[in-house]
C-alpha cells in the first residue's frame, strides 16, 4: 500500500509531465507552422489526460485531512433503518431553525411569532418544521377525532363535518405562500434588523391540500343576503376573521395537507383556512366554524390589529392581499460575501411574491434603487407563490454595493420606493410594508441592512412631504 505522500509525489510527477508536454507543444507551435487547430486539439487532449489521471494540485503539501484521512462515517455502520422512522434533519443543521424575539411576543410567548430562516431556504417550499409560527393563544394540540367543522348562519342547510367527512370532498392541491402582513412592519421608520430572517421571515411557502370552501357550500344553499363569512378557530383564542363572499367563492380552501403530510400543530392541525395571497391572519388555524351573515363581524384581529393607520388619522380595514414584494436572499446579513475573492462569479439570488397575482419580473439595482437591471426568474412561476429570481454578478473585492430588488406582478403592480410608500400611508401603518429592501455590501463583503429614503416633513394640513424637496 502506497503512503499518501508517495501517491501525491507520483501525481505531481504526472502533472509536471503533462505540463511539459503542453509547453513543448506550444514551443513547437511557435517555432514551426503547426496548424493552430491541431495544437488546440492536442493541448485539450493532454489536459483531459492530466485531469483524469490526477487532479490539478495546488501545492505539494499533504492536503485536506477531510479527504486524506478516513472519517468514521466512511468506515463504520450508520444507523439501522429502524431508527428515526419519522426522519429528522442532520444534527449539523441545528442552527437552521425558527427564531423569535421578545419584542414580538406576549410575556407568555402564546400570542407571539417565530420566524422562518429564509436566508437558508432553497427553492420555493418551506419545510414544515421551519414554517413561521404565529398564534394568539398558544399552539393548540387538537385530537382530530374530536374536531368538528360547523357551517352556519345564512345557509339553507347548516352542516357539521367530521375530519373524515371533510376529506371526502374533491381535493385541491396548490402551492401558496402565507405571509404575516407585519412582515417588515418594524421597519417603517428605519431599518431595525441586521438579519434577513427577521426583516423578511414572517412568511413561508408550502404545497397545501384541502377542499375549496365553495365545493362544500354548493349543497348548503347560501342565502342571497349573505355577504360575509366568519372563520373562527377552535383554539383558546377563538381567533376569527371576516372574509367577503367573493373570495370564499373564488379560491378559499380548507386545508389539512402541507407538503405531503398533515398540517403541523403550529399551522392549525387538523385544519386551517387558506385564503391564497391574503394576510396570513385570515388563514384561520384550528378552524372549527364558518358562519355567514349580511354584515361584517368586527373581530378583534381586524380592528384593533391588522388595520393600517394613515397620516389622515383614518385606518385601512379589510386590507386583504399581501402586495407584490421581493428580497435578496443571497447574500444576506447572515450569509455574506466575506469568503469571495476578487473576480469571483457569484449568483445573487432572491425571492419575489405577490398575493395579488403572479410575479412577472424582478429588477435588481446595485446602487440602492437609482438604476435597475432586469434579473431572471427561476423555476416554477405560480400565482400567489414564492418565485425565485437570480442575477449573475462578478464580484470586485473592496467594492461597496447597495443591492435592491424590485418585483412586478400580473395585476400591474410594482414595488414602491420607501418614499413613495410612506408619502401615502405614513410611518405608523405597521402592516403591509412592501417597499423595496436594500442590503449594503461592505468593503469586506459583510452585508448590512440599510434603507434608502428621504426625511419626511409635514405640511400645515397634515400632508406628508419630503423635507427639502424643491
Amino acid at each position, binding site marked *: 500500500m502506497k503512503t499518501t505522500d508517495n501517491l501525491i509525489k507520483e501525481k505531481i510527477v504526472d502533472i509536471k509531465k503533462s505540463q511539459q508536454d503542453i509547453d513543448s507543444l506550444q514551443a513547437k507551435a511557435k517555432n514551426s507552422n503547426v496548424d493552430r487547430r491541431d495544437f488546440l486539439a492536442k493541448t485539450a487532449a493532454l489536459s483531459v489526460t492530466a485531469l483524469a489521471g490526477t487532479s490539478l494540485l495546488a501545492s505539494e503539501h499533504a492536503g485536506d485531512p477531510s479527504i486524506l484521512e478516513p472519517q468514521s462515517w466512511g468506515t463504520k455502520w450508520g444507523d439501522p433503518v429502524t431508527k428515526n422512522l419519522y426522519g429528522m434533519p442532520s444534527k449539523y443543521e441545528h442552527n437552521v431553525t425558527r427564531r423569535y424575539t421578545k419584542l414580538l411576543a406576549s410575556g407568555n410567548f402564546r400570542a407571539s411569532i417565530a420566524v422562518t430562516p429564509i436566508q437558508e431556504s432553497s427553492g420555493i417550499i418551506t419545510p414544515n418544521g421551519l414554517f413561521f409560527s404565529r398564534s394568539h393563544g398558544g399552539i393548540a394540540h387538537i385530537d382530530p377525532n374530536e374536531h368538528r367543522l360547523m357551517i352556519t348562519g345564512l345557509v339553507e342547510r347548516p352542516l357539521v363535518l367530521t375530519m373524515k367527512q371533510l376529506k371526502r370532498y374533491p381535493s385541491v392541491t396548490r402551492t401558496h405562500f402565507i405571509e404575516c402582513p407585519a412582515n417588515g412592519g418594524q421597519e417603517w421608520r428605519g431599518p431595525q434588523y441586521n438579519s434577513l430572517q427577521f426583516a423578511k421571515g414572517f412568511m413561508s411557502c408550502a404545497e397545501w391540500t384541502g377542499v375549496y370552501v365553495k365545493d362544500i357550500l354548493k349543497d348548503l344553499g347560501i342565502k342571497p343576503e349573505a355577504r360575509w363569512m366568519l372563520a373562527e378557530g377552535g383554539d383558546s383564542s*377563538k381567533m376569527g376573521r371576516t372574509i367577503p363572499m*367573493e373570495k370564499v367563492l373564488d379560491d378559499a380552501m380548507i386545508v389539512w395537507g402541507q407538503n405531503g403530510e398533515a398540517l403541523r400543530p403550529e399551522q392549525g392541525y387538523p385544519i386551517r383556512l387558506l385564503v391564497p395571497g391574503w394576510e396570513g391572519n385570515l388563514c384561520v388555524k384550528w378552524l372549527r366554524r364558518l358562519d355567514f351573515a349580511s354584515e361584517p363581524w368586527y373581530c378583534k384581529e381586524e380592528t384593533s390589529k391588522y388595520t393600517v393607520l394613515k397620516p389622515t388619522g383614518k385606518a385601512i380595514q379589510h*386590507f386583504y392581499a399581501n402586495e407584490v414584494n421581493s428580497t435578496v436572499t443571497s447574500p444576506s446579513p447572515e450569509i455574506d460575501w466575506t469568503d469571495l475573492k476578487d473576480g469571483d462569479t457569484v449568483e445573487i439570488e432572491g425571492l419575489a411574491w405577490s398575493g395579488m397575482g403572479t410575479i412577472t419580473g424582478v429588477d435588481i439595482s446595485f446602487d440602492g434603487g437609482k438604476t435597475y437591471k432586469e434579473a431572471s426568474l427561476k423555476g416554477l412561476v405560480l400565482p400567489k407563490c414564492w418565485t425565485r429570481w437570480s442575477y449573475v454578478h462578478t464580484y470586485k473585492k473592496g467594492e461597496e454595493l*447597495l443591492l435592491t430588488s424590485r418585483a412586478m406582478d400580473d395585476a400591474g403592480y410594482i414595488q414602491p420606493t420607501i418614499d413613495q410608500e410612506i408619502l401615502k400611508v405614513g410611518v405608523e401603518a405597521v402592516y403591509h410594508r412592501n417597499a423595496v429592501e436594500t442590503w449594503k455590501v461592505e468593503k469586506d463583503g459583510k452585508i448590512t441592512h*440599510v434603507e*434608502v429614503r428621504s426625511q419626511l416633513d409635514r405640511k400645515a394640513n397634515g400632508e*406628508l412631504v419630503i423635507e427639502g424637496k424643491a
Partner: protein
Amino acid sequence: MFKLNKKLLISISAAAALSLGLTACMDSATPTDTKNVTKASIDGGVMYPVVNGKTGPYQVNEKAHSGAIKFGRTPTKAEYEEWDSDVMADGTGLPEGEGSVEEGEEVYEAKCVMCHGDFGSGGGGYPSLSKGNAYELHETLTNQRIKPDTDGPVRVFGTYWPQASTLWWYIKDAMPHPMTDSLTDDEVYALVAYILNINEMEIDGQEVDDEYVLNREKFLKIKMPNRDGFEPKIDGPNGPENVRKYFSNPDNFGAQKVKPSERCMTNCQEKTAKVVYIKGAGISDFHPPLSEVRDLPKEKASGFNAAKAYEANCAMCHSADGMGAPVIGDKAAWAAVLTKGKDKVYSNGINGINGMPPKGGSSLSNTDFKSVVDYIVNKSK
C-alpha cells in the same frame, strides 16, 4: 365555478352567483374569458377562473367541482348555540346581563392585572387597555413619528377600536388568556364597564364613573370615538363593493401600478434619498442567536430549573407537615438530616428511604436530582 363577471357579482347576490355557477358551471371558457384570463378582484389583484380545464398553471378535474356534494349532517340547536358566541356590532349575539365598574375592577384585579397592569397600562408584551381619556387621545391618531422626538398615535380600545361589541366578544371568548371562556356574562359586562371607566368614556352623555352599572341596553348605546375612523366602509349592502372600489385605486393603500415597459430603470430614487443605517445595535434580541455554522449542537446547558423540578416532583410531600417527610424550610429537621453528610442525603434520596420512593418517584437524572436536593437544603438553612 360561478361566472367571474364583476358586474354580475355586483348586481346579484353571492348565492345567486353560486347557483348560477352550478348550472352554468364550466361555461366560463368563453372567448372573452380566454382573451382576458385575469380580472379585477375585490382585493385589487387578479383572479384565475377555470379556462379550458386550467386555473392559472393548474390542471383541474372540472367534473369533480361541477356538482353539489354532501357529507356530514345538520347540527343540533344545542350544538349551534354552544359555538355561536360571536357578538356583532348591532348587538346580535349579545346576551342580557349587567355588571358595575366596581365589580369589574374586582374581577380585573383578580384575573387581568397580572398581564395588563394597573389600570390597563399594559407592559411586558401585553397590550395596554387605556392610556387615559379616550376622546382626547383619539386626536393622536393623526400623529406620525417622522422625527425622533414626535409622539406616536395612541391605539388602545378607547381611542382606536371602532366597535364596543369587539371588546365584549373578545373578553368572553378569549380572556383571561390562560383560561378562556371562563367568565360569566355579568363578569364580562363588569369588565367592559371597568375598561370604559379607565378610558374615561361616557355612554349616552353619562360618564362611566365608579358607580356606573352597565347592561345590554346601555352597552348598545356606546359610541366609540373612532367609529368613523376606518376606510373603506364595509357595512350595509354596498360593503363589498366599497372595498372593491377602494382597492382599485393604488393611491389609497400606497401601491404603485405601471406598465412593465414603462417602469423606471434610471433615476428611480428621489434626490433627497439617503442611505439610512440601523441605529445602534437595532433589534438583535434573537433566540436562538443567529448562526450559520454547521456543527454539533452543544450539550444542553442545563435548562434545568431546580425550583420547578421541586414543585413538580417533591412539593406534594416536602411542603407540608403530616406527610412524614422533612418539610422544606424546616431548619431543625434538615439540620438533623444533614448530620449524615450531604453524600448520604443524596444517596438516600436517589435510592429511596422510608416512605420515599427512589428520586421521589421522579425521572430526574442523578445530577438534576442532586441539584433539587441542594435547592431544598438551601431553602432550609
